[in-house]
């Protein structure tokens, strides 16, 4: 158990530290000018020293990410389910979804600004746009691969379609569902930043970075990039945590405690 925690937490942290070390070595070793690449320490200081300015911007990016992600995940799930259940919808909607993903998001942003104006809405739309697709595709795939014998068994017992869906099909699809959610999580912040670039009039993390760039403040450009990356990683880890929490059977041989939910009835 200890060993596993060490392996699962320690090793990723170590590999990130290694990235910083390599960065440091390159910058120092090759005498890279500081206006091209700062040392890791300078990049980090550029963030901490401006923290009171940055923090509201970070919160703004997180807000866009969360709204867009939650809407996108929900939309993606519902679309996946509807497409899996109704063949004609799948035939009609699948091409549209594919086309939607072929549109370069960066080119989409100005269009959204024209339609939706500035503010948070176009950013949320972009995040949603990016997030729903892997969720839909994976849910569709997962629901399509539920063991037909298991579904037949449910039928033999006289299960309704709804109960079969809730009790069998959804839990049987958790692995692909979380694959989609994790892919979406890692791209969500990218979507939010693209939105900020194209549709910000006032303050945003992306504009802060642009501003630093035009001021030749290279350390802050790198620092802001690190902050954006960290938001993405944090969001990804949150989803991983949710997966671990909601799928105990994938790691344990014995249930930790009585596990009762919704239709299961019973309190506690």
């Amino acid at each position, binding site marked *: 158990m200890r060993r596993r925690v060490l392996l699962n937490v320690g090793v990723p942290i170590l590999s990130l530290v290694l990235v910083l070390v390599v960065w440091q070595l390159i910058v120092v070793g090759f005498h890279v000018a500081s206006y091209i690449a700062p040392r890791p320490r300078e990049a980090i200081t550029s963030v901490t020293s401006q923290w009171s300015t940055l923090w509201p911007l970070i919160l703004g990016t997180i807000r866009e990410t969360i709204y867009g992600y939650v809407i996108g995940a929900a939309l993606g799930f519902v679309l996946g389910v509807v497409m899996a259940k109704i063949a004609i919808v799948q035939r009609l909607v699948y091409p549209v979804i594919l086309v939607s993903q072929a549109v370069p998001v960066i080119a989409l942003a100005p269009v959204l600004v024209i339609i939706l104006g500035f503010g948070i809405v176009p950013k949320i739309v972009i995040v949603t746009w990016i997030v729903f697709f892997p969720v839909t595709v994976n849910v569709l795939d997962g629901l399509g691969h539920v*063991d037909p*014998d*298991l579904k*037949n*068994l*449910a*039928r*033999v*017992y*006289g*299960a*309704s379609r709804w*109960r*079969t869906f809730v*009790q*069998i099909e959804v*839990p*049987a699809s*958790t692995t692909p569902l979380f694959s989609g959610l994790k892919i979406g999580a890692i791209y969500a912040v990218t979507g939010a930043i693209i939105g900020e670039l194209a549709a910000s009039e006032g303050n945003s993390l992306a504009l802060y970075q642009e501003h630093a760039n035009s001021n030749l403040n290279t350390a802050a450009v790198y620092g802001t990039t690190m902050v954006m990356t960290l938001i993405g990683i944090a969001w990804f880890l949150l989803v991983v945590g949710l997966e671990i929490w909601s*799928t105990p*059977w*994938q790691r*344990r*041989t*014995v*249930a930790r405690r009585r*596990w009762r939910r919704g*239709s*299961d*009835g*019973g309190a506690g």
Partner: protein
Amino acid sequence: MPTTLLELRGVGKVFGGTVALSATSLAIEEGSFVAIVGPSGCGKSTMFNIIAGLVAPDGGDVVLRGATITATTGHVGYMLQKDLLVPWRTVEDNITMATRLTRRVTDEDRAEARRVARQYGLGEFLRHYPSALSGGMRQRVAFMRTLVTHHELLLLDEPFGALDAQTRLEMQEWLLQVWKDTGRTVLFITHDVDESIFLSDRIVVMSPRPGRVVADLANPLARPRGIHTLLEPDFIALKAKVLGLLHGGAA
């Protein structure tokens, strides 16, 4: 005079030109253990699917305790070679799974699941996930799940087909014990002739495709049965007869 629990009245099924099951009639007595043997592809599973209501027969009727249940589900217990336990539920929750698929699981349901599990050797595993269990244990759980549906008729389709010989024999003895205790009616498909004789009161032998019933044999072997049963002259005689029927020649 024993009562008839299940009656098949001329049920048959053709799948796109292939006769999966010729029109078959069969009556099953309440409380009996009937084995169905036949070569692979002769329509045994199709017959079960018709009884279970998964497949609508092309003609004929399925009658359970006098009521026609043709092409309707929810009347029988049903178990396959694949245990079909769900990995995300504990043993206890897998046992109550059939109930959960139709209504809320009550505390009584859970208590019953725990009781039967303890009674039949699964007590220590109630909170285990299925992935932690051996094949034989998993089949026991699957059978418990079938049992707590409270259906009088249990359809078991090669339930021990994937187990090794040793485990299989243990499971057969175990199943006979549960059957004796609970008084259910069992229809048991197997292609293992020894198994069919060891377990049953009666053996229905089916022909190769297109499947139909070619013989309906009473099994005279005394109960309780054990390893000694496998060596009795009656056992050998019955085995010779069934093998003869399955392989064309008369014994």
